[in-house]
């Protein structure tokens, strides 16, 4: 068979026409309004309530399911599925009045039984955080189809904070059998503003408007697409080329955010992380004689240039931490011993300490370029102060194994403080949370009976003033002890097109629903 030049040319022309036809078809598809395209990564493990525990899973779940409450940026509760709620003076009885006339996406009515099932069975079994909180609960009862009562065995001051859509997404009891761990069909059913439409694994998750949503006029969007794009640079390119409208916090490297912010019709916001309060710090392994020496721990703190970390590595989207609590966490106080950047003082402390010049193993966090730059800056700071630092990188599974197996000298981490210190801070410092095998507890192995007792009292105390005093005492003690090297109160800038209105309107930001979001000029 031979192909002559004319045939080749006509084949080429056909190919060009093929491309042009495809281009115009695609351009038309992109032009539809009331649709929001959002980048997402990593791909969630599931979007059924209770089975998706990671941040990306929760960002989708928060649109399909509702919580009883929503929380404003000052972490104050607002009504959602619960229209009103009362807390007894001794904080032992919580009573929620539920909204009437609400239906699940399959048309079945939402009642108090669904709340009891979700809190007492589904999430108590599947969500470790809820299980810890529910340990204080004596009973959960449906007093009538629209009233639920939680009766506490002992007060748990942070209890009300559990009722958001990410922690307690209300699931339909009628779809579950006896075994709540058995995965349901991939079609999740909630009462949320959006209904699950399609999930093409590796490509996208598609949600559509719930026409029967319980708040009139909402949601305003017709479609939400979550595009799963694994590479950070490709996510930035997807935004630049107009294929996605929103890059949630952490989706692109911090050095890319400033560049994207300069694009026309683009906005950047740090709002929407008030309830999560992400904070970065460096664990020091208190099990090692070296880090049992307070002078060594103080030397580490003085050696670290946290201003540079915030300005250079985080490009200004973070604040240096002043202690163990993020400035957005309730009962935060800056009135604690401070360890300003002072290399000379660090060198002096180190010279007086038990340090003998041995190499200190620093295990970074493999969450992208910015975290590696942070580790390199820390090594530079510590080296200038006289430490010999061995930077040991591993992939995420390897890092988590070493952290949870306590196989490190220094290691980086970041965790959500969850608004209330009883929920997101205590687990990092109390001795009962020193448990090998998990990287989300007191990994550093810090122990102080006074701190243990204070955290216990803080979680039970019902008077906010007394709680503030207790947590101020805790913050002072942790700082005096240098329980860890606190680095940054992290900001996670969300990059979005200016045409998107009301993108973030609670303290959970994109983890909450997009029910109020809309697109201007459509």
């Amino acid at each position: 068979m031979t192909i002559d030049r004319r045939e080749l040319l006509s084949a080429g022309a056909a190919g060009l026409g093929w491309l042009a036809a495809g281009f115009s078809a695609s351009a038309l598809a992109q032009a539809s309004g009331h649709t929001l395209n959002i980048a997402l990564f990593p791909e969630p493990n599931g979007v059924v309530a209770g089975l998706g525990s990671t941040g990306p899973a929760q960002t989708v779940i928060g649109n399909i399911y509702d919580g009883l409450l929503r929380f404003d940026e000052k972490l104050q509760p607002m009504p959602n599925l619960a229209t009103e709620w009362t807390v007894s003076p001794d904080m032992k009885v919580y009573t929620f009045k539920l909204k009437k006339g609400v239906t699940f996406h399959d048309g079945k009515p939402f009642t108090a039984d669904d709340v009891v099932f979700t809190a007492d069975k589904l999430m108590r079994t599947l969500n470790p955080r809820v299980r810890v909180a529910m340990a204080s609960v004596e009973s959960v009862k449906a007093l009538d189809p629209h009233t639920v009562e939680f009766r506490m065995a002992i007060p748990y001051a942070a209890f009300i904070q559990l009722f958001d859509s990410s922690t307690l997404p209300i699931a339909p009891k009628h779809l579950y059998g006896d075994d709540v761990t058995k995965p349901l069909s991939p079609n999740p059913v909630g009462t949320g503003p959006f209904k699950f439409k399609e999930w093409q694994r590796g490509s996208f998750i598609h949600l559509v408007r719930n026409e029967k949503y319980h708040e009139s006029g909402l949601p305003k969007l017709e479609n939400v697409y979550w595009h799963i794009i694994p590479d950070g640079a490709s996510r930035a390119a997807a935004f630049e080329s107009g294929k996605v409208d929103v890059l949630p916090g952490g989706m692109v490297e911090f050095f890319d955010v400033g560049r994207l912010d300069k694009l026309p019709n683009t906005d950047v916001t740090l709002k929407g992380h008030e309830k999560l309060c992400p904070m970065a710090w460096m664990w020091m392994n208190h099990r090692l004689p070296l880090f049992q020496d307070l002078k060594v721990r103080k030397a580490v703190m003085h050696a670290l240039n946290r201003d540079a970390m915030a300005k250079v590595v985080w490009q200004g989207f973070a604040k240096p931490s002043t202690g163990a609590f993020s400035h957005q966490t309730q009962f935060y106080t800056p009135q604690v011993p401070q360890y300003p950047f002072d290399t000379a003082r660090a060198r002096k402390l180190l010279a007086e300490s038990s340090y003998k010049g041995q190499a200190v193993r620093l295990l970074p966090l493999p969450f992208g370029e910015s975290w590696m730059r942070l580790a390199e800056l820390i090594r530079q700071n510590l080296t200038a102060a006289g430490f010999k630092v061995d930077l040991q990188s591993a992939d995420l599974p390897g890092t988590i194994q070493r952290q949870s197996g306590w196989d490190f000298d220094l290691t980086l981490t970041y965790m959500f403080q969850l608004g209330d210190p009883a929920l997101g801070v205590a687990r990092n410092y109390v001795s009962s949370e020193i448990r090998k095998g998990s990287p989300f507890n007191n990994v550093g192995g810090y122990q102080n009976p006074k701190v243990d007792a204070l955290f216990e009292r803080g979680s039970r105390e019902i008077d906010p003033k007394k709680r503030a005093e207790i947590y101020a005492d805790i913050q002072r003690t942790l700082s005096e002890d240098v329980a860890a090297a606190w680095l940054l109160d992290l900001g996670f800038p969300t990059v979005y097109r200016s045409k998107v209105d009301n993108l973030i309107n609670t303290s959970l930001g994109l983890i909450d629903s997009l029910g109020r979001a809309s697109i201007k000029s459509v």
Partner: protein
Amino acid sequence: MDTFRFLARRLLQGLAALLLIAVMNFLLVRAAPGDPATLLAGESGAADEVFLQQLRERFDLDRPLPQQLATYLGQLAQGDLGVSYRQQQPVIDLILDRLPATLLLTGTAFLLSLAIGVALGVWASVRAGTWKDSAISLFATVFYAMPVYWLALLAVLVFAVWLPWLPAFGYETVGGGHTGLARMLDIGRHLVLPAVVLAMFFMAVYARMTRASMLEVAGMDFVKTARAKGLPAGRVLRAHVLRNALLPVVTLAGLQAGAMVGGAVIIETVFAWPGIGRLLFDALQQRDYSLLLGTFLVTAALAVLFNIITDVAYTLVDPRIQLR
């Protein structure tokens, strides 16, 4: 009959190789640090002992390694690749779901690189020593040396951001609602950038190898004889030089077919192409053992298959070679 016996023997050898690969993969994957249960527990706040133990029991991770291996091989014997820990779906379904996208990507890249690479090599060899030959050599050297990840990002920047001609990511326009021919065209547009980038390295290799091989064969006595007999130059080139020069190219094509999936991991990640390469990458990140082993095994099976096809292709290019 010889061909049938050859194929039967090669398939049996392939199965034995796959069994060995399955055992080695199982042991290597378990030797890598990282506990799937801890990763699955995620950032949920308090991955407590009870929860972790529940996860380990659910996935049989609490049993001794030899028992786990025996169970795995027993499953394989029944054609069962297990269930993905993370996605809670049969591994075979996940792989079959992604395989067409990868085959489309790698197949297109394979044909592109082979056709253009060989054509460039032939063209350069007949113009050896001219500036055109030098230009092709320069092209081949540049794309041979350029890291595929960097080239991919460059392509996205130029063709999707600066000149918004082609889509930067995905398999098709999400929400486009295309069907039939319109959908094929849409997929084709999305295929251009990843396939071309994936093809570039091997295109460069083919060009260099074909050129060198052509020049070598062209200097041989039988070619001189053919010319001396007065055969037309075009026929000498096609029937004598090219046919003999293609043997090393066939060898390389066989290797490329197996190696393509490795390159696809990077390409599929950069272009968010929902193929098996990304499935493998995600499984590795999550230490999703059953999914990881499944994808390894399927890609190994493809490599074995391509090897057999390469052997058959030798006989087509050079009838003097016999299958035995």
